[in-house]
């Protein structure tokens, strides 16, 4: 599968940013070389300590996290991991975050041409200091601007990650595609929260956290389905994958690849097992590749995407 600019994955099962560290942490128990790709933890220009603990808690069929982009900064990430990554067969995609367009551009410039970096995934669910703290991801102009700037700064394959915390994802997805992204990934977490047991305040040190896991799968599926009908670039689905049925659902909704996140915590071997299960499923159906499974649930070319906003009526 080609995600653009030569980012070829041997299979469509990736591990999601923030849930698989830098690929080394699970190496004892996972044959990471068998993964389609690894998206590493969000990387910023300067080191970040992240949010105050506690940072994770479980919710019904999901979890909240508020890591706050803790990472040693792009220089340290490259120093510690790039050489190792360069020796791996599995491509490593660096997830990049920032608070200004300049941040993103600088990080990506540093990644450009470094052996071991197979691509970039922009996490744009970050407050944009230039726009008074509004996230890049919720504003189509800001999303397009950061994509365009990064596009100019690198020849690396460029994936932009969509946030579900918007009223209508389609114009944003289109703007990002038009601005030169090679692929889209969707979705990042939903904004949520939990309280302390004694209800004296928020449980998470950062008050708010991102909701992930099976609970959000219906939302992720909806977004992939919507986006697949309005953009021409590949979509990588993320959100609540825990088994082959979820993978097949996301493919049918128009994704060409899938990332596994939260489910790794319960079952680190899941992503690799899904590689085998998907192959077996294709075999059962007499398919040489999983590509015919992509988009089967999408409306035909004629019944194209609606542009009337979110049509859902309760």
């Amino acid at each position, binding site marked *: 599968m080609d995600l653009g600019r030569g980012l070829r994955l041997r299979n469509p099962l990736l591990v999601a940013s923030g849930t698989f560290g830098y690929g080394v942490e699970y190496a004892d128990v996972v044959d990471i070389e068998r993964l389609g790709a690894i998206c590493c933890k969000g990387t910023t220009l300067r080191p970040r300590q992240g949010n105050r603990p506690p940072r994770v808690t479980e919710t019904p069929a999901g979890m909240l996290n508020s890591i706050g982009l803790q990472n040693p900064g792009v220089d340290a990430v490259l120093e510690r991991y790039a050489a190792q990554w360069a020796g791996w067969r599995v491509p490593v995609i660096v997830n990049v975050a920032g608070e200004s367009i300049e941040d993103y551009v600088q990080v990506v410039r540093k990644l450009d041409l470094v052996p071991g970096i197979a691509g970039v995934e922009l996490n744009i669910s970050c407050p944009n200091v230039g726009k008074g703290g509004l996230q890049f991801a919720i504003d189509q102009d800001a999303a397009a601007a950061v994509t365009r700037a990064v596009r100019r700064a690198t020849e690396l394959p460029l994936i932009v990650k969509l946030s579900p915390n918007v009223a209508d994802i389609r114009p944003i997805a289109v703007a990002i595609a038009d601005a030169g992204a090679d692929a889209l990934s969707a979705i990042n977490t939903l904004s949520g929260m939990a309280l302390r047991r004694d209800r004296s305040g928020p449980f998470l040190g950062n008050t708010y956290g991102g909701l992930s896991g099976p609970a959000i799968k219906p939302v992720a599926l909806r977004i992939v389905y919507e986006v697949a009908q309005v953009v021409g670039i590949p979509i990588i689905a993320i959100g609540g994958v825990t088994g082959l049925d979820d993978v097949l659902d996301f493919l049918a909704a128009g994704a060409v690849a899938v990332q596994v996140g939260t489910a790794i915590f*319960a079952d680190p071997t899941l992503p690799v097992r899904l590689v085998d299960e998907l192959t077996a499923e294709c075999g059962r159906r007499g398919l040489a590749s999983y590509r015919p499974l992509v988009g089967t649930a999408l409306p035909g070319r004629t019944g194209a995407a609606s542009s009337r906003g979110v049509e859902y009526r309760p």
Partner: protein
Amino acid sequence: MQLVDAELQESRQILPGQWLQQYHAPALAAGARAGQFVHVRGDWSGLVLRRPFTINTADPVTGTISIHFREVGRGTAWLTRLRPGERIDMLGPLGQGFQVDPRSRHLLLVAGGLGIADVRLLVDEALRDGRQVVLLYGCRDASEVYPSSLLPDEVEYLVATDDGSVGHKGFVTDLVLEYEAWADQAFACGPLPMLRTLAGLVAGRKGRLGVATLGRKRGGGRPVPPGSPAARRRSFLQVAMEQNMGCAVGACLGCVIWGVDGPQRVCREGPVFAYDEIDWDATAGPGTHAQ
């Protein structure tokens, strides 16, 4: 670190709401060090995360480990319903255990409530290595006192209860003063306030305490990087910390507590830390399982 299919052999309630479960898991029993933990996955439909439990005891000969836990929520409730012969998935052993200086003769162990689970294996290791162990244990009242029958006879075991129904009336930390001079190293696990008090005691009395400690004897010498095994061995007090966990292997950065040098992952840099690695003022959390 391995993924192990562990078979429950025995499960019993040793105190009201507290369970001791023994599992057959040779790979874990062989590698476990006191202070390390396992990350347990039940077949608890609807729950998406594993649950961490300290390795309470480990016997490489029989290939068994035990965990000691309190039923507090859905995960632990599910565990209590597991029947002997049933199997669960355990990831472990995980984290850094207690660092005992080879020269230490006298170990002071301080446990509050369920914190006993964290130091229990250290008792066995220390006795095996011919050290003397004093175990100070604090809990609310008589009904919660950890049964001495579950401890080797060689341990000197002192109890404090909040209401004085057994042993000393008051906090277990009150008992520490008597043993601080005797001890070469101290190891503690329990509720955050208890650990904070201990850390304060040790910090405040560093001078006096130091006289008896090995760390002090070795004196100024070469610098050891903070958080390294060597540095921890030199610190008079090591504490087992707790935080909600995602991965338990260092990948998600979900389990950090605030250290003096910034965020520390309980699952990787910990759960055992030297007391002076922790930023006690900034450290708050879900509390520990200890009480």
